[in-house]
């Protein structure tokens, strides 16, 4: 594994110029993500339009992997329903934690995930730009950096589904 497979140009670009970065008012759903191991922190806010994610923005601070992952995620889930976004989360999660043969790696197994069991290249082809994060699986200590934003999105969507969010839900990857 080479470093340039982890720090691909897409990642470096999204780290340098994160897309959809900043606040969003008023938000229909929001959540905070925090990785106590490394101090990465992000706040995610989104607006829904006809059951779909209309606008989504994030802010906070983190390493290149966590910043780029959040930036790529906001691009990927815009226009998707909550169910579609969560399904995409599972695909990304399995990409981050399974080895090339589809064997679960550092994370939990993702049974029944479309694409599981296929060679990595084929399995992740249709993930588009998100596939740039596939190098992370070779660095188990960094998987949480890439998945923090997705856990935070899931939390934001769940609180929205559960009715009015009284308090800002907080996600911790520890």
């Amino acid at each position, binding site marked *: 594994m080479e*470093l340039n497979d982890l*720090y691909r140009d897409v990642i470096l670009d999204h780290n340098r110029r994160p897309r959809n970065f900043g606040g969003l008012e008023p938000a229909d759903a929001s959540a905070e993500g925090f990785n106590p191991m*490394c*101090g990465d*922190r992000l706040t995610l806010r989104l607006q829904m339009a006809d059951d779909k994610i209309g606008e989504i923005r994030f802010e906070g*601070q*983190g*390493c290149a*992997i966590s910043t780029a992952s959040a930036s790529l995620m906001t691009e990927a889930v815009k226009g998707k329903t909550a169910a579609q976004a969560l399904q995409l989360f599972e695909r990304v999660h399995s990409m981050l934690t399974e080895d090339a043969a589809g064997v679960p790696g550092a994370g939990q197994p993702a049974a029944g995930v479309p694409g599981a069991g296929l060679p990595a290249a084929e399995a992740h082809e249709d993930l588009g730009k998100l596939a740039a994060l596939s190098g992370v699986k070779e660095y188990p200590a960094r998987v949480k950096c890439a998945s923090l934003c997705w856990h935070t999105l899931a939390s934001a969507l769940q609180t929205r589904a559960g009715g009015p969010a009284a308090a800002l839900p907080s996600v911790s990857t520890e």
Partner: protein
Amino acid sequence: MKSIALAEESLAFDVEAVRRQFPILSRSIRGKPLSYLDNAASSQRPSSVIGAVDEYERQHHANIHRGVHTLSQEATALYESARDRLARFINARSRAEIIFVRGTTEGINLVAQSFARSTLKAGDEVLITHLEHHSNIVPWQMVCEQTGAKLIVAPIDSRGIVQLETVTALMTARTKIFACAHVSNALGTVLPVRRLIAAAKSRGIVTLLDGAQAVAHLPVDVQELGCDFYTFSSHKMFGPTGVGVLYGREQLLERMPPWQGGGEMILAVRFDKTTYNGLPNKFEAGTPNISGGIGLGAAVDFITALDREAAHAHERALLDYATRILTAVPGLTIVGTAPDKASLVSFTVAGVHPHDLGTILDEDGVAVRTGHHCAMPVMDYFKVPATARASFAIYNTFEEIDRLAAGIERARKIFS
């Protein structure tokens, strides 16, 4: 001239001979030689420590202080001889003052829950400093909550220095305990502990020093320091994990209630009344980490056999060299610039997050710690989410620091 001084100090200390005693230093990481610069998190073990633990496991293991059979007596003798060596190592007045604990964290918790909890009253104050490790903050917060006492934090300055006057200004009639690090783990600052303790003692304040980052680097003499408690971990001084020492002044330990109840810490148990054991056993409930204690004893022998002045000069030279090399890196900021520092450098690099730097350095076999170093208040003070930290031990070389610098340069290129 600096370079000549470095060469002379290196000659006086045979670093290669030291390195040969540490088997792990000859392994490679991702095809590169290991440069282990994470000694403030945990140091490596010499063959003598590994051998002492191995010999114990193969030849002498049994439970200690129980049974008349040969193995139990051998195990007891080995374990207790480690206690004797530890007492000499820090110049305790007696072996009764050496309490085996799991590590520094447990040592501080023991003092907080036994001594502090039984003596603090509502309105009393516990004084610490802003640069403490979480383990010298949270146990005091907990006991303050239990007793109604108040936690007071003495500030640091922008170089990471604890000024004597700033601390003494906070020592009042309400202050009952003063606890601070001997050496800061996040910044490297060596605190003016002798003067701090003298100031506390003159006001009748009980003192605790967190020696986790000090024992492997500085000579520690608890009588000369004058502190009431001193605690440290084995694994930061070339010994095994899971064991450490709490030193306490005997008169204080005698007065303190036991912390945990169980076997070993009792003389007689009846349902209506239990009689506690004497020191040090009163604070050592349950079967201890026997092999760890024996390994720690071997680590003490290892350190004692070193030419400590030459070793200290070598570490000082490493720190000076690293400081000079890293200061020259564009965009690099050293966090913690006290004149009196232990051999570690905490730093940030503009445009490169510490975690990305850590991953890139690992690719070159260079192990550094990245993160908040269990000192979040220190990170908040310097307004950084995290830093990278290179921390040196006697077996590190100037070449390893060159590899660190080359890796930082590589990271800067990737993120340029």
